[in-house]
Structure formats: structure tokens, C-alpha cells
């Protein structure tokens, strides 16, 4: 259903200052509903037609002690009248629900930026919890900002007094007051959120939330001070089409369903809950009408091995996890490599090692994906660049897995998984179709005979008369698949499996750098650094530097012309949220002097960090 969203109401008497883009961050306690608030603002901005990029940032604890520093949860959205690729380096409007949120986030607010604070929670008790000694609203420390203290709780109480709602529930509505204020500040319609409240809540609670939202809007409208803080951000001129707002994990789940429809095989998911991958399990569990079987296994190993069993039975099979789960699955992925069954393994990377930073992003599973199994066990590895690209990478990974009869790893990350962007909705006909055929002819069948073009073995599923055969992780004879320990045969099989995966390169498009095709520096990135690098490229080139950008979607095998293209630049810079894993690989394969730019803070790179680094490298 297409919903036309009206521009700000005609009676809007406020003279709004036009901005190219704006960055808002909502921050508060984990229980303050900041993720909901941010998501609602994002959806409204998306429906309005802004381009946008989001960065939800929350702690691993579900409810850390209220008001404390570890409990602070934030949601940042950059919405724009032009194309944007990152959630923004710094913040124009900061909404801080308590002193702890203020303390941990104020550093990112631009000088002169708007700061809305919930002054009801600026008491001595709150300061103690936030480990601050003086009231920042009074001590002058916020003098560089335009501060708007608002008694959110009192105002919410007043707005909802006729609903008969209990105090605790009223407290939980106050985020809608802040949201209503932001809608006014940017001249946005409340309709989308009002509809959403009706679909999500019932009775008194729905009523209270709607009243609070409207009260927040009316509060700004009626308060003189806000008239100088009214802005507008026009819709972006994106390519024509139907758009929706989409997060990376939702995109990935949808991509797998689309792959199942386009290859003609039922989708099987074996998964074990793990942050930040669980949303894919939740999404796919809802898609039963597409014939999806989602199996919440007893552990990570059962998740992957059940998927291998389903692949053996002829499904498009997938397993989804994060780094620690990947480590547990590796022996089984080796089995899928040895028996040459198709499997899509999704790793939503997070900070590590071990439990690490469950809710924060990282790109440090690249080595694990490419090298992390016993013995010679190569497989194709792909990485999406944006939340929306997760959809297309899921399709591409499925296509490669089925065509080459191999497990394929998708390396997404926490930032892509939870981040969202407007996504042009493709028609079903636009999607690639890759109908998959099983072997049915017993004539001349051998389980490890190979297609000469792809080196893929035939997929002969149980139940096919005359094709009874045995497979296993034990070394097998070339062609027959019988157990075989002969030295020459093992050498041959190791090389055949490697050649098959290396041969996937025939499906990998050549690299075409963005920006300058040759010159001073080429930035080689992969995965979620796409946005930061893309944003940095234009300002660098505007300064007269010859800078190119290669973004790798296929990390194994790498594009055929990559080595040659990198040679066209004086320097090769590789920014990664790890300690230089891709740089290491590029150096070893291409003998190129790749310069690693490593930062592992659980956050994406800022555009400015990339710019600064490139300038440093050029110097």
C-alpha cells in the first residue's frame, strides 16, 4: 500500500529554516523507549521522502540499573534532502532523557546544536547515578548549546491525566512527548506514528501515547522559544521508484525468502538466538506462508548441522549467527565443504573476542570466515555494503551456493543489521531467477562427478530412485565418493575443492572504482564502511586529490582485476573495523603495500576520520 504523506500542515505558521540534512540523536535509559522513538522518527522521515541513515546504539544489558551510565541507549538518524551514506559524524539535535545520557552523548553535539533535556530527571539522585557532581543545567557547562529543558514527566502526566493510567505507565509514555516535539521542530506529520500506536497498543495505553505525542507537538507550537528552532529538510531526489524503510537484518531475511522463491526450493533456517542476529530468526519465523521452516535449535552446532541435513534433503538451507556462534559452527561448515552441499551461513559480526561487545559492530570475523576451519577448507565469502544491500547479497550468496554446491558465508555486522535506510523496492521480475535442478538420472551417476564449467558435483537428494549413495566428511575418492586415503587422491581432492571455490571468480564482477580511476590513493573497503568511505570521497576530490574507492562485495574469491586496478594508484588505504585483516590479505595475495587504517571501537568510522587519514596518507 502506498501512503501519501502530506507536507507540514497548511496552518503551520512557523517560518522554518531550510537545512540540507539534520542529525537527531535520542538517548536515555534502556527502558526509556529510545529505540522505538528513533525508529518512529526514521519511518516518518522515510515516508516524507528524505534519504536517511540510522545508527541504533544500545547496551547488551536489557535493563541496566535506571539512570546509570551503562544503561544509556541511543538512536541516531541522519535525514537529508540529498543522498546520505552515514548516520552523521556529529549531532544537530540531541534529546537526553537523563544526566547519564547527557554525559555520555554531549560530546557528539555540534556547537550551537539543540539540546532538549528531560529536566524532571535532573535531581541530585540522578546526578549521583550518572557520577556527576554538579547540575549541568546550572553550572555553565552547556553554554555552547541551545538548551531546552523540558519537564517531560510533568507534562506527560498533565497530558494523560484523564486516561486514568497508572504512574508507571505514564512514565513510559514520556518518550512520545519528546517525539512529538521533534515532529514539530522538523514540521513532520504525526499520522504515521499515530497509526503505529493504534496497531501496537490497546485501550488506555494507546490513548495516553497518542495524547502525549500530540501534547509534545502542541507544546513546541505554543512555546515562543521554539519558534527559532524550527527547521525543514526537504525530500531527497532519489531515483524514481517505490521506496520503503528497511534494516539490514530484515533485508537479509527477505533476501533469503526471495532466493527461495527464485530458485524454487523451500527455505530451511536452523538458528540459535544470538545478538545481533536473532532478528533474522524472528523475521523468518513469521514467513511460514512462504513455506519457510525455521528451526530454533538446541545450540549453534545443531543450528548449522540441521541446516546441512535440510540441504542434503534438497532445501535452500541457511544458518544465522554472530562471531561466537560462527566459532562453534566451523567444524560443521567444514563438513559442508567436504560433502559439497549448498549452505548459506550468515555472520552478523559483533565486537569480540569471546562475548566481547554483543551489541556493538566490528569487522573482525574476516579471518574467521576465510580461514577459520581445520585443514584446507575454502569457501566463498560475501559482504553487504549497506542495510538494503543485505537483501541482494542474500540472493547472490544463495545463487553461488546452489550453483557451485558449496557453503557460502555472508559477513554482515551489527551496524548494518540494525541500521536502516530507504530502499527502492524491486519488482519480483527484477530479481534474478536461478531455478535449481536435482540429479534424477541414475545412468552414469557418481556422487562426486563434476560439472566441467563449475566443478560442482550433482545434487542427488534422498528419495530419488537409483541414486542411493553415501557421502561423509571422511576423505573420498575422486568421482566415486568411496572412502579413500591414498596420498595422490587426497592431494587431488584438496586441489579440486580449492579450484571449485577459486572458480567462483567467473561470477564476480570486475572492480570499477568510484571516484578517480587512477591517482593518489585508492581506498579499499568492504562491508559496512561503505557509507563512511563514500561520504569522504567527494570532499577529498573537491580538494583536488585523485582518490578512488573500491568496495569489495566478494571477499573470496576476490575480483579478477583487483590487483591490476590497485596498481593504478600511488597508495592503497584499507580502513577496517579490525586490526587490518583485509589489508593483510591484500598484501599477501597482491604484494601491494596496503596501508591499514584500523579502528575497533564498536562504532562505524566517521566520514571525517576517513578524510583525515587519506590526507595523511597522501602527504
Amino acid at each position, binding site marked *: 500500500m502506498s501512503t501519501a504523506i502530506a507536507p507540514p500542515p497548511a496552518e503551520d505558521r512557523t517560518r522554518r529554516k531550510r537545512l540540507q540534512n539534520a542529525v537527531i540523536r535520542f538517548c536515555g535509559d534502556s527502558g526509556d523507549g529510545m529505540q522505538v522513538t528513533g525508529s518512529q522518527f526514521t519511518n516518518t522521515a522515510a515516508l516524507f521522502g528524505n534519504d536517511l541513515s540510522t545508527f541504533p546504539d544500545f547496551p547488551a544489558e536489557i535493563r541496566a540499573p535506571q539512570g546509570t551510565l551503562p544503561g544509556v541507549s541511543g538512536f541516531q538518524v541522519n535525514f537529508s534532502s540529498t543522498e546520505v551514506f552515514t548516520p552523521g559524524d556529529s549531532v544537530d539535535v540531541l534529546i537526553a532523557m537523563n544526566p547519564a545520557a547527557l554525559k555520555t552523548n554531549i560530546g557528539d553535539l555540534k556547537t550551537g546544536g539543540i539540546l532538549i533535556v528531560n529536566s524532571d530527571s535532573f535531581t541530585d539522585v540522578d546526578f549521583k547515578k550518572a557520577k556527576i557532581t554538579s547540575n549541568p543545567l546550572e553550572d555553565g557547562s552547556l553554554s555552547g548549546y541551545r538548551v531546552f529543558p523540558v519537564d517531560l514527566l510533568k507534562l506527560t502526566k498533565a497530558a494523560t491525566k484523564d486516561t486514568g493510567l497508572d504512574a508507571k505507565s505514564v512514565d513510559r509514555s514520556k518518550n512520545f512527548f519528546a517525539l512529538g516535539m521533534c515532529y514539530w521542530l522538523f514540521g513532520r506529520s504525526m499520522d504515521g506514528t499515530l497509526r503505529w500506536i493504534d496497531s501496537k497498543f490497546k485501550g488506555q495505553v494507546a490513548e495516553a501515547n497518542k495524547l502525549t505525542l500530540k501534547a509534545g507537538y502542541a507544546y513546541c507550537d505554543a512555546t515562543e522559544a521554539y519558534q527559532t528552532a524550527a527547521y525543514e529538510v526537504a525530500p531527497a531526489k532519489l531515483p524514481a521508484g517505490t521506496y520503503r524503510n528497511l534494516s539490514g537484518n530484515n533485508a537479509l531475511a527477505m533476501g533469503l525468502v526471495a532466493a527461495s522463491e527464485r530458485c524454487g526450493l523451500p527455505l530451511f533456517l536452523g538458528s540459535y538466538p544470538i545478538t545481533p542476529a536473532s532478528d533474522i530468526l524472528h523475521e523468518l519465523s513469521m514467513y511460514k506462508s512462504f*513455506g519457510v521452516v525455521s528451526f530454533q535449535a538446541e545450540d549453534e552446532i545443531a543450528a548449522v548441522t540441521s541446516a546441512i541435513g535440510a540441504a542434503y*534433503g534438497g532445501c535452500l538451507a541457511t544458518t544465522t549467527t554472530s562471531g561466537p556462534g560462527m566459532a562453534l559452527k566451523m567444524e560443521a561448515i567444514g563438513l559442508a565443504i567436504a560433502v559439497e552441499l549448498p549452505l548459506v551461513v550468515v555472520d552478523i559480526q559483533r565486537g569480540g573476542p569471546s562475548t566481547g561487545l554483543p551489541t556493538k559492530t566490528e569487522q573482525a570475523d574476516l579471518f574467521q570466515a576465510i580461514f577459520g576451519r581445520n585443514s584446507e577448507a575454502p569457501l566463498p565469502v560475501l559482504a553487504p555494503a549497506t542495510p538494503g544491500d543485505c537483501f541482494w547479497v542474500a540472493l547472490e550468496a544463495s545463487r553461488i551456493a546452489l550453483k557451485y554446491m558449496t557453503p557460502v558465508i555472508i559477513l554482515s555486522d551489527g551496524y548494518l543489521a540494525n541500521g536502516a535506510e530507504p530502499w527502492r523496492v524491486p519488482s519480483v521480475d527484477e530479481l534474478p531467477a536461478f531455478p535449481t535442478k536435482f540429479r534424477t538420472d541414475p545412468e552414469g551417476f557418481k556422487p562426486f562427478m563434476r560439472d566441467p564449467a563449475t566443478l560442482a558435483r550433482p545434487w542427488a537428494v534422498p528419495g530419488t530412485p537409483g541414486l542411493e549413495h553415501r557421502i*561423509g566428511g571422511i576423505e573420498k575418492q575422486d568421482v566415486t565418493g*568411496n572412502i579413500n586415503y591414498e596420498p595422490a587422491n587426497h592431494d587431488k581432492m584438496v586441489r579440486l575443492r580449492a579450484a571449485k571455490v577459486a572458480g567462483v571468480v567467473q561470477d564476480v564482477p570486475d572492480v570499477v572504482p568510484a571516484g578517480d580511476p587512477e591517482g593518489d590513493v585508492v581506498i579499499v573497503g568492504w562491508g559496512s564502511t561503505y557509507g563512511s568511505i563514500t561520504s569522504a570521497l567527494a570532499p577529498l576530490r573537491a580538494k583536488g586529490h585523485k582518490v578512488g574507492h573500491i568496495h569489495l562485495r566478494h571477499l573470496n574469491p576476490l575480483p579478477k582485476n583487483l590487483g591490476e586496478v590497485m596498481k593504478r594508484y600511488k597508495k592503497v588505504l584499507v580502513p577496517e573495523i579490525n586490526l587490518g585483516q583485509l589489508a593483510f590479505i591484500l598484501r599477501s595475495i597482491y604484494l601491494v603495500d596496503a596501508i591499514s587504517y584500523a579502528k575497533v571501537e564498536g562504532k562505524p568510522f566517521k566520514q571525517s576520520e576517513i578524510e583525515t587519514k587519506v590526507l595523511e596518507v597522501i602527504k
Partner: protein
Amino acid sequence: MNASVPLTRKDFQTDQEVRWCPGCGDYAILAAVQSVFPELGVPREKFAVISGIGCSSRFPYYMNTFGFHTIHGRAPAVATGLKLARPELEVWVATGDGDSLSIGGNHTIHMLRRNVGLKVLLFNNKIYGLTKGQYSPTSEIGKKAKSTPFGSVDRPFSPLALALGAGATFIARSVDVFQPHLKSTLKRVASHKGTAFTEILQNCNIFNDGAWDAIAEKDVRDDHVLFLEHGKPLVFGKAKDKGIRQNGFDIEVVTLGQGASEADLLVHNEQHPSLAYAFMLASMDSRPGFPTPVGVLRAVDMPAYEDLVNSQVQQVVGAKGKGDLGKLLRGPETWEIK
């Protein structure tokens, strides 16, 4: 293959050289399975035999069916995925005491809890064979093996009691050398819906020879084995003169004619409403003076997991209609850019 020609044992034999040690109990189990499969009225291509790692797990290579030799301990999970994907297949799992109760213990209990329609043959030889003789989770306390030169201090599992604790709907026990009994047990296994969990006492003549002699040897077996039959009293002994009688909350061995008659004995009920009865049978062999029950200890009807999962999918399709990919892609809200 012409479906009208009945299958024979030969149809289930492969051309692969069997690589178990000469004298291994696995040969007898293989022979029994190969002779039972043709009698089940199932086309050969509908069988899939899944195994983990260990001597027992080489089983699929010798069965001319679909077969998958997977990794250590994971056969129940691989088989669960296969059975969910292809419920019409007859999926058998060959495993050992180390494979299913040590490294794969988690998958074993969850397979049983879910009641996945798998036929599980647990070859229990109370030793690690393929790694050359370490004690296993079913080895008796004090077991001297390569890794326990001074004797094992671990308490062993009772596989069938463990299975019951995990919610098994079918548990049975047989012995490698009891060929007719093993075959009739396998037929019962074949007909059970849900997980049919079968412990087969198996001799490892290299690393644990004679582990089951007290049960398996011809001259002693009748005094030490209780052959269970549904609806029949619990009688054993060479002269059929001993039985199991209830005594308060416990049981006792009585000799018939010496103050006890057959009418006093417990009557075997595979569907006994109390799990305590099944536990009593499953743990009887660990009690001095009591026989080891073989046969079907428990068999109750419960919905199989794959049926529940797939019927839920069908229900949703029925209620919502078949999924529309275009609609899914568009999501709850869209906007147009011209």
C-alpha cells in the same frame, strides 16, 4: 528399479569393503538391519541412514541406501534437519555410546524431547573403539582403559534412563548376538512414530571384549536377561522360574513356586501411565541380582515433531494464503518517488 520385485537383503548391501575388526558386534547389527529393511515395504530410495563419528558411524557406508556420515555427535541434528525437510523419508541414525552420550549428548536429549521421527540405533560397547580404547560415558566405575590406567571414577549413564528423562516415547534394548530378538525389535523401531531410541548391547572384541558376556553368553543369558513382552508377566530364568514382583514402591526378584506365583508378578505394559515403571525397567540392570530387560521397554503415541512443524506451516498457508513475494518486498508502508 522395478517396485513390484520384492527387495532382498542383498539389495541393501554395498560394494564397499567392510572395515570393522573381524569379530566385531557391528557385523551382526548390520546383518540384522539389512535383513529387516527389505521386509518393511519401503522403497530403497526412501531410506536415509545418518551417522556421527566412531566405529558404529561407519554403518551408512555399508548400507545401499542414501547415507550420510557426518561429524562427531551431530547425527541427531543433521537427521532432524533432514526429517523436517523430507518427512516422507525413513531416517535412521547409527550412533555409539561416545557419539550420542558424550559429544552429542545435547542433540540426543533434544531430539528425544522434540520426538523427531528418527530411528536411533545406539551401539553400546561401553568403550571408545575408533580412538583405540578410552573409557566411555557408559563404562562402569573403575574401568581400566587407556586414559584411566588406575580405573575410571566417572559414574556411567544408563542410556535408556537418560532417554526417558529426556521425554522418549519409545525405548528398546537388544543385543548384537540375539539375532531374532534384534530383528523383531528393529521392526518395532521401524513402525514407531517419533523418536525410536534403541540401545544395542554390542561387543568390542578388541578394546572391551566380553563386556556383555554376562548377558550375551548362551549358557548364562537366560538367568540374566528379562525378555519383555507387552501384556506378559515379567518372567525370566532358564527354567522360567523367576519373576519381578512389586514390593511397596520398589520391586523384588522372586522365585516362582516359592511363595510366589505368576499372578503375583508385574505385567509388562509398554504404555504404562507411570513413567516410574519405565524408569524401573530402564535402570534394573544396574541393580545387583536383577536381570537386564530387553525388548521394547516403553512405546507411547505422541505427535512427531516434523508433523507438528509442517502442519503449522500448512495452517499458516491455509489461513493467510500462499506468501506473495511482491507484497513482502513492499512491507507495511511505502512511498513513491517520481
